[in-house]
Every structure is written in C-alpha cells, then in structure tokens.
C-alpha cells in the first residue's frame, strides 16, 4: 500500500513507532499469556497512555484491548476499553445461526468514524470469530447483525478496534486501513 511498516517481534521495537496495528488470529487466553510473558502489555500501555500513539486492533487484537474474555477460562485483557468480550454461542440460537461467524456481513454505522471516510454505510466486510462484544452502550461506532447485534467497530479517541478483517476485505478494507494510517 505504499506505507512504511514493520512486523515487530519484540516489545522494544515498538518504542519508536508512530502507529500500531494489532492483528489477531488465535485464542484469547493463549495469546494473553504470551503477551504478559514477553512484557508486550507494559510497552503497549506506555505507548498508548504516555505517547498517545494510535492503535488499530483487528479481530482478536480488538478483543485483547478489552477488559476480559471468557474462552476456555476467564482471562483479563489489556483493559484499554472497559468492555467485556462474550462467547456468542451463549446468546445466539445456534440451530438457526451458525457459529463461528464466518463470511461477509454488513457493517452499520451508528456513530461517524474517521475510519469510514469514503465507505458506504452497510458495506460488507469479512468476519471470522466465535466471540464478540455484545454490550453496546460504550464506545461502539458500528454494529453488525448475526441474530443479535454485536459491535463491529469500537473506538476511544485514537484507539480503534474492528471485529472484521480489513486486510481481507478488498477495496473497502484498503480504504479503512488507509484512513487509519493517514487520517488518525
């Protein structure tokens, strides 16, 4: 896409970055353990709270920014957002709505977001997850429906979380990423 980026293997390398994209494929508690063991959490929190660096959490990355999640055990996240992540199958009739939620689904904009500059309301993005944010009263910019509404985009100032994968969502995904890099 024409922007300088680096895949970071150790927390020290985060120190000089302007913006952080926090992607995620994996299981919440497993990844949190790895994060804590390697002190990623300390560096990330410092960058966010002290240096005011912009962060975009994708899928599991978004969930890790939250307060906690219940996967195989209840596990605390980085607590940047005071929001809990829940197992969707506990709240959805899985005889009618299959889980994991895999495929293309529409994102409804509830609050205008700089990430969606140039993207139509109701555009489809690619999702692949079994857990989600079901409490919609705080920090929620966009929702998506799979029997119930869940948060597809959350934000607070320059910290963003998206449940879908913009890097797999073709043109609209590219626009969103460009907006994060150039406009936030």
């Amino acid at each position: 896409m024409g922007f300088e980026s680096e895949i970071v293997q150790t927390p020290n390398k985060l120190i000089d970055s302007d913006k952080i994209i926090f992607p995620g494929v994996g299981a919440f508690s497993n990844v949190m353990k790895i994060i804590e063991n390697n002190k990623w959490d300390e560096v990330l929190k410092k960058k966010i709270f002290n240096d005011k660096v912009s962060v975009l959490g994708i899928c599991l990355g978004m969930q890790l920014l939250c307060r906690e999640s219940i996967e195989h055990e209840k596990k605390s996240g980085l607590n940047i957002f005071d929001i809990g992540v829940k197992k969707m199958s506990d709240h959805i009739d899985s005889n009618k709505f299959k889980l994991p939620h895999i495929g293309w689904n529409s994102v409804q904009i509830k609050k205008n977001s700089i990430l969606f500059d140039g993207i139509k309301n109701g555009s489809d993005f690619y999702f692949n997850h079994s857990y989600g944010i079901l409490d919609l009263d705080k920090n929620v910019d966009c929702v998506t429906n799979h029997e119930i509404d869940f948060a597809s985009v959350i934000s607070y100032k320059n910290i963003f979380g998206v449940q879908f994968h913009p890097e797999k969502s073709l043109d609209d995904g590219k626009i969103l990423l460009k907006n994060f890099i150039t406009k936030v």
Partner: protein
Amino acid sequence: MLKKRLIPKLIFKVKEIGQEKYPVIVTTKNFKNIKFVGDPISQAKIFESQLTDELLLVNMDSLDLDNNQFLLDYYKEFSNKIFMPLTIGGGVKNIGSFKKLLKNGADKVCLNTAAIENPEIVSGASKIFGSQCVVVSIDFKKIDKDYLVFYRNGKINSKKLLFEWIKEVENLGAGEILLTDIDKDGMSDGLNIEVAEKVSNSSKLPIIMSGGCGVAQHFVDAFKNTKIEGIAAGNFFSFRDQNIHQARSQILNNGIELRK
C-alpha cells in the same frame, strides 16, 4: 446479515521440470483423471477481481510441511499477492503444521486424513489457535444405503458413518466443515442436496458443500433447499466457459444474498 459464500477450490500438485518446481492447479473426476489447468496465482487474481468470497488452496500431493521451505515460501508469496481470505490444506499432520501454515499466509487451515488418524489435533488446534481457523474436510461416498467417510485422497474407507463423524468433529472443536461427495466430484451434474440438507439442518457449524457444480443453477438449488453457508467448486471456476459474474447474477436474482 451474513451472506452466502462462493469459494473457488484450487487443488494443486507440484510439478518438477529439471531443477525447477512449479505448483499447478489440477481438476479431477471422482478424485482421479487428473488434468493440469494452470497457475494458482494467476487464476486466483481472476477470482479476486470477480468477487468470489474466499479461496481454498489444497496440495493434492499432501507434501510434508516439515522440510518443505519451497511450499511454505510459495504459500507466503500467494498470500502476499492475493488479498482474499485463504484456507490452506494438504499434508497437515500435527499442531506444527497449523503453526507453519498460519505463519505463511493461511487464515484457516484445512485437515482431512489427520483428523481421522489423530482426532486430538482438531481439539488441540482449536484450543491454541481458536476454532475459527480449524476446517475439517470430509470426503464421502454412498455404499449401499449408508454414507461412509473416505480418507487419504478418497482411497481408504474409514468405515465411519458420515453423520456420526460430523457430530464427533463438532464435539472436537472444529470451526467449519467442508463436505465433498466423491461420486459427484467433477461430474458437473449438481451437488448432493440430500446430504447438504440433512447436515446443514442438524449441525451447529457452518457447512461448506463441494462436489458436482456444473452450472449456476446448481448453486441456486443448493442455497435454496439447504442451510449450507457456502459452496466450494473446483471445475466450475477453473474452466473458462462458466462466467463468474453471470453465476453471481443468477444466484442474486434468485433471492440469495451474496456480498456486495
């Protein structure tokens, strides 16, 4: 709402010409009669531009991933050039296989024989990586009155009943199930609607059906009469006489939601 998915199935073999290795897409009939049809990356670029939803890339040789930097590098190259959700399969044999594939471009990993020979790989991978990246592929054939599960590229009869194996796979923690009717593979006379309907109604997992798509109407029939989430097709997408835009229009005109 969640849209239905059209998934080109790219089955490939690695051809060796002198010192050079080339991955080449193949099509099959009942898992035999192999025909070489083209380069995976150039084909995938066409699918990307024609709005198909995901790609399924499967190595038919089931090459060992442990000492195969060539194959892993190829997957990495593929995922760097194609921006579609990618499921990679073939040769998966343990948790290490998952790690290697996810690191080299896979969004989801597909396993078939390994699930039968070592079912704990399914539960293990689901716990470590999340069920959303574990796709269990199941090949089946009707023998007398029963649907039976075959593995090792359809060569060995596991003696497992299809519907029982599906329940087992669900309990092991798989995220998605890919079903292929071996007798319908490459025959272009439609998907197995009976199995698709029964499984999609009883399973809690998303079901992808495969085997037999010849014309757009086959997709319509399957989506209208069953609750499957997606259809994976090999021959339909590989042979240029079927136009993807036309197929999408026909599916949409029949009231089936596809992505915009």
